[in-house]
């Protein structure tokens, strides 16, 4: 073993100071890494988003949405600060889908890149980790991609702002759809949900309550961690109990596996809702015709009657050759809200920018935005259904673009 010699050499007495001396100087050594460009004539906005790790998919949409909003402002000449037009520079960092890294990135965006305002990451764990740093440093942070209850439950926010859907609304939709569209079932519901922040709230608490209120019987309620791959026993149980309504809240890889395992168990519920995981187009691509009939709540679609909605999706698809996701809309809107706030503050003082975010009252690509006292802005929801590889809005009636497939084929 070659390491043997080095080990022997190192086993000589080792005084404390030999270890401490370089440590005392280590901060100077790290000074090499300092590359911070201090430009006084630009507005620096920072964002730590997941560009690698399990959530890299979300991060790529956020990157596009954030960059698009910033590019548009720069094309129009930038933002006037204290009477001078300044360009905006967006600094992006990869948080590797690790909240520890989100926090560290957010700190260095402020201390190294001198960011004056921040945009958020995606999913509660990551967004909250960054928002807590922003809160401590008293720097405004605008984010989407964090369900409002999960955001609100962390603390009383002063500098962080969230625009997304509200879990109770999301949880209520399946029952509204069943009722409004007069869909006949045996009123037996099976719920499968992950034990992440939103899964716990929607699947663990809200769905059972709302099922009861709507006169449905919950015959099964099962939770699982987000890295589970096997769902055979819970599917078998739901089948044995004869549930005709299956409500699932899970991330995409699990959503795909659950859909496959429901089919391969020979189980055919009449209504199948898969929140969260069934939203991106990859869900339908991975499943092919098995995706048909799966319902998912959505907070945005290019057909929504808001300014720029259709253009945003078209631009995204022509630039990237990918199918749009609703995440381009909330990230684009979050960046616009922040940029508008900087413009109306006319200053780079974080306090003033924060005050301007609080006053936001305008219709963006995701709908009208006005933050309430817990710093939430609710995005209106619709029920989407996968039909032939595309989603159609099947509820509410005034937004519908297609008719519901029922029962699930």
């Amino acid at each position, binding site marked *: 073993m070659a390491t043997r010699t*080095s080990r022997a050499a190192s086993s000589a007495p080792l005084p404390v100071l030999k270890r401490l001396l370089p440590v005392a100087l280590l*901060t100077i050594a790290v000074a090499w890494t300092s590359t911070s460009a201090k430009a006084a004539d630009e507005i620096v906005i920072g964002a730590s988003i997941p560009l690698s790790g399990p959530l890299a998919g979300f991060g790529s949409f956020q990157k596009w949405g954030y960059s698009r909003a910033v590019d548009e402002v720069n094309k129009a000449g930038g933002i006037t600060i204290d009477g001078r037009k300044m360009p905006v520079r967006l600094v992006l960092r*990869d948080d590797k889908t690790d909240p520890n890294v989100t926090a560290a990135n957010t700190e260095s965006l*402020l201390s190294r890149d001198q960011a004056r305002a921040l945009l958020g990451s995606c999913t509660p*764990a990551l967004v909250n980790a960054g928002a807590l740093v922003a809160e401590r440093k008293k720097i405004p942070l605008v984010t989407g991609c964090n369900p409002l209850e999960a955001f609100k439950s962390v603390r009383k926010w002063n500098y962080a702002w969230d625009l997304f859907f509200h879990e109770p609304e999301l949880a209520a939709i399946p029952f509204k759809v069943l009722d409004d569209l007069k869909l006949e079932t045996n009123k037996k519901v099976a719920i499968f949900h992950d034990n992440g922040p939103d899964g716990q709230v929607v699947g663990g608490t809200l769905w059972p309550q709302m099922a009861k209120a709507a006169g449905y019987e919950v015959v099964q309620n099962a939770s699982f961690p987000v890295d589970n791959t096997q769902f055979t026993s819970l599917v078998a149980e739901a089948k044995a109990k004869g549930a005709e309504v299956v409500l699932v809240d899970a991330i995409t890889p699990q959503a795909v596996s659950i859909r496959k395992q429901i089919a391969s168990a020979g189980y055919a519920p009449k209504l199948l809702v898969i929140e969260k995981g069934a939203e991106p187009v990859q869900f339908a691509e991975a499943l092919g015709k098995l995706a048909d009939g799966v319902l998912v709540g959505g907070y945005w679609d290019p057909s929504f009657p808001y300014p720029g909605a259709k253009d945003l999706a078209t631009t995204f698809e022509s630039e990237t050759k990918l199918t749009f996701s609703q995440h381009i809309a909330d990230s684009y809107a979050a960046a616009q809200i922040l940029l508008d706030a900087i413009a109306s503050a006319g200053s780079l003082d974080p306090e003033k920018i924060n005050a301007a975010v609080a006053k936001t009252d305008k219709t963006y690509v995701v709908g009208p935005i006005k933050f309430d006292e817990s710093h939430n802005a609710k995005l209106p929801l619709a029920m989407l259904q996968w039909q032939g590889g595309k989603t159609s809005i099947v509820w509410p009636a005034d937004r519908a673009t297609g008719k519901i497939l029922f029962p699930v084929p």
Partner: protein
Amino acid sequence: MSVLTTSVPERSLLLHHPFVRVALSGISFAALLAAPSFLPAYFVEIGFKLLLYIVLAEAWNLLAGYCGLVSLGSSSFFGLGAYVTVGLLNHTGSGIGLALAASALVAMTLALAMSRGLFRLRGLYFTVGTLALAEALRLLVVNVPWFGGATGLFVSADLPDVTELFRDAALLLVVASLVMTLATGSRFSVLLRAVRDDEDAASQVGVRAFRVKLAAFMVASALIAIAGGLQAIKLGAIEPYGSFGLQWSVDPLAIVIIGGLGMRFGAIVGAIFFVAIGELLADYPELHVAITGIILIILIRCAPRGLCGLLETALRRTGPTKVASS
């Protein structure tokens, strides 16, 4: 690294005097404590990260480099420390110091409880066993509702600012350094080496191999748990995937390998390099993970004794100082 090259020759000349040693240790420590007052905020942040990584790497080095216990289970104690610290802060209103001390105690208890089983495993089995321990703890925390599931826990008390945390981390590093000095420079170090090199032979000549390993394992676990607690306080919010993440097990290993396994400055040099690479590549968010991997592979291939080994070789070639053997 320039730090090392300048300090090395000088060391062999006057640093052997006990008085000079104590004085220099004191000065270094004082400088470390004073650092956050005059350093820019960015360097305090990075410094905190660096201190934490050095502690983790030293703890890993104590196990692997000096006892032959190659562990992939640092994250079990890191996560444990994080959860115990936050739990105590939230529910008992104890101070940070008390919460951290308690987390060290809990980690030592866990180490004690697991030791009987883990130490029956030799070599690879020990590595795989510690990996499973971390994963089992994470799954337990994810599934048992007391720990907040995948949502995790939030610190309800006000968080101390990073200057104070930097000082706490500096203090922890001093403790870790003392431990390493003891482990490598005392009678205990002879026992450690005896156990590492040939456990069976050591047992035959009367070394209580089990106790020696247990002592090292418990101390390392306590250090890692305190580091976990500090990181949790810094974050203000913890959840199982971040706190029990594999990265807390693998990063210390990568750091020690980069710096030099069993080398006295291995952990420090490795940590500085590791953190500096992370910061330098921050502007290439899409590629930095892959580049880190490539650097790791190249280093292992070209510098089997780590950066410290490279430096030693370079010094031996340029100067006749007896650096390498000291």
